[in-house]
């Protein structure tokens, strides 16, 4: 009954988790390394062009360490990644890390707004579906959610543009901000709405916010689909528990039983779901950003891919993997601190 020390309860498992995540990250580097090396495109030729003279190519190979045995190349690769050196992008001819730092806030902005919307709508929908399990509100909400699992995000984006931009003109077209304001906003945080407000450019901030509406709503739909589905199944599980009967025996109203008692028990696993859905949006952003010409990480990766800019592709992939792994860590730490049984 005496509570164990903070060290035993929280710190030790978290340390174990960090070690396991570090191993995972190491494996991730190995996979990207292998992908980069089996690439049919010769990195030397890709950097120098097909018509480079043979001696220049040889010197380049030597400098880049491409003549070393594979395992030495891997060590060099890992060392460089830990130094933050992902090489130079062929397309932008800047260091890849610099490119990623520039585009990442745009993705973060989109994913954050989308997650907030997804939670605000998805949780109540899931609760409603669970309470009316097997009746029409449940069926409607489930189909709305399942449709979110079924619709191609890029197509929904295109249809969204067609309807709300081209036909109805409710929202602006692709891009992050009206071109007229583009030069008014200097990147400070990289989140355009905030940057514009910091500089007192209210009209520019409004334009940036309006540009956010459609792409973030579309991503939010996917987050909503996931969150409402998980909320529903967690709630169904909890509503069958005996303490729910206890609450009813006490005379608690149905609203109190559902929102206070059952949802209270669902809140902790839900934080994990929300964190994971945030991570999943990074994936959704690859296609959404392509459709909306949104200069974020997803579009950076696809553009680099289509131009065989492998340094940029692998750098982007590693960063996404790193974010994934960190969000998993965050989910676990949140779980341990929020659930009284795990404290």
């Amino acid at each position: 009954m005496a509570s164990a020390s903070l060290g035993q309860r929280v710190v030790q498992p978290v340390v174990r988790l960090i070690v396991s995540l570090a191993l995972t990250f190491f494996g991730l580097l190995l996979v990207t390394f292998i992908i980069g090396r089996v690439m049919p495109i010769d990195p030397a030729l890709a950097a120098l062009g097909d018509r480079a003279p043979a001696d220049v190519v040889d010197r380049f190979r030597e400098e880049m360490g491409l003549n070393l045995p594979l395992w030495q190349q891997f060590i060099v690769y890992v060392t460089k990644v830990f130094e933050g050196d992902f090489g130079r992008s062929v397309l932008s001819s800047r260091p890849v890390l610099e490119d990623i730092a520039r585009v990442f806030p745009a993705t973060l902005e989109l994913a954050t707004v989308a997650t907030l919307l997804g939670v605000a709508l998805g949780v109540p929908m899931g609760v409603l579906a669970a309470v009316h399990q097997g009746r029409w509100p449940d069926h409607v909400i489930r189909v709305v959610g399942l449709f979110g699992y079924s619709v191609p995000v890029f197509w929904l984006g295109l249809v969204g543009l067609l309807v709300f931009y081209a036909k109805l003109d409710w929202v602006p077209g692709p891009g992050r901000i009206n071109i007229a304001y583009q030069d008014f906003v200097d990147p400070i945080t990289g989140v355009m709405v905030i940057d514009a407000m910091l500089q007192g450019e209210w009209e520019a901030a409004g334009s940036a916010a309006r540009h956010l509406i459609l792409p973030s709503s579309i991503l939010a739909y996917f987050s909503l689909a996931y969150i409402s589905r998980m909320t529903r199944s967690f709630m169904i599980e909890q509503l069958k528990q005996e303490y729910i009967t206890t609450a009813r025996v006490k005379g608690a109203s149905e609203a109190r039983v559902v929102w206070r008692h059952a949802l209270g028990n669902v809140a902790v696993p839900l934080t994990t779901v929300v964190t994971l859905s945030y991570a999943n949006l990074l994936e959704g952003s690859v296609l959404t950003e392509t459709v909306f010409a949104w200069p974020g990480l997803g579009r950076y990766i696809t553009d680099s891919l289509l131009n065989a800019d492998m340094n940029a592709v692998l750098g982007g992939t590693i960063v996404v993997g790193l974010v994934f792994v960190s969000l998993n860590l965050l989910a676990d730490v949140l779980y341990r601190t929020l659930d009284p049984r795990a404290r």
Partner: protein
Amino acid sequence: MSFDLLSVENLRVRFHLDKGTVEAVRGISFRMGREKLGIVGESGSGKSMTGRAILRLVQKPGSVTADAIRFNGRSGSRDLLTASPAEMQAIRGGQISMVMQDPKFSLNPVMTVGKQIAEAYRIHRKVGRTEARERAIAMLKAVRIRDPEAVFNRYPHEVSGGMGQRIMIAMMLIPDPDLLIADEPTSALDVTVQTQVLAIIDDLVTERGMGLILISHDLNLVASFCDRVLVMYGGRIVEECRAKDLHAATHPYTRGLLAALPTIDAPPGDLQVLTRDPAWMHA
């Protein structure tokens, strides 16, 4: 003793499943006053369903019918079958409460026990947080918990089974109901704390002049603790008698149960196999 606290007439609980309809309770009737009534039977005899049906807590595939479930508490007489959902909410906890089998499952795991007890009080009395807290602590004291202030802030997983059940009793009695249904209240507990918990229930029920329905599979326990006993088999009441007359029971099922009890002073011969006659379900 007047039998006017609760009268149940022709109560049936049915479950509509794919395989067809299953009747868990098959038309039982009984009356009780402010006394200790025991309901005994094996698992599946419908004893727990009877308790839940009175509180109208039978869930979806199940349905409850009866000619009447008349409850006559301090705030007047009512047919529980026709009471509105709002009336039922006021009755649950406020006038009829229930203690369930295992505090490990029946307490909300992410709420402190104090909050859960205070909540039970505040649902039925319009009082502030502080007063509810004081009441809850007093109630914890009444169920003989030492250091109630400390226990108030504990989570259910931080208390033992016996303490959990006392917390459950505190929570169910704090709004001062007229009738307590105790559904196997000691079955999940260590033998050493069973008597302790029963003694607390006994004291509080007697002190407050409440009625008690004790649902159990334990013939000895019911016989020694209650005033009257109903024996259920296959969803029916097969025997009804005063607890002290149980040894003179007439129904073959009850006789079989009594014969199956090992005694300390008799030589341990072969135990009788309980005979079951399907006709008991229909008679």
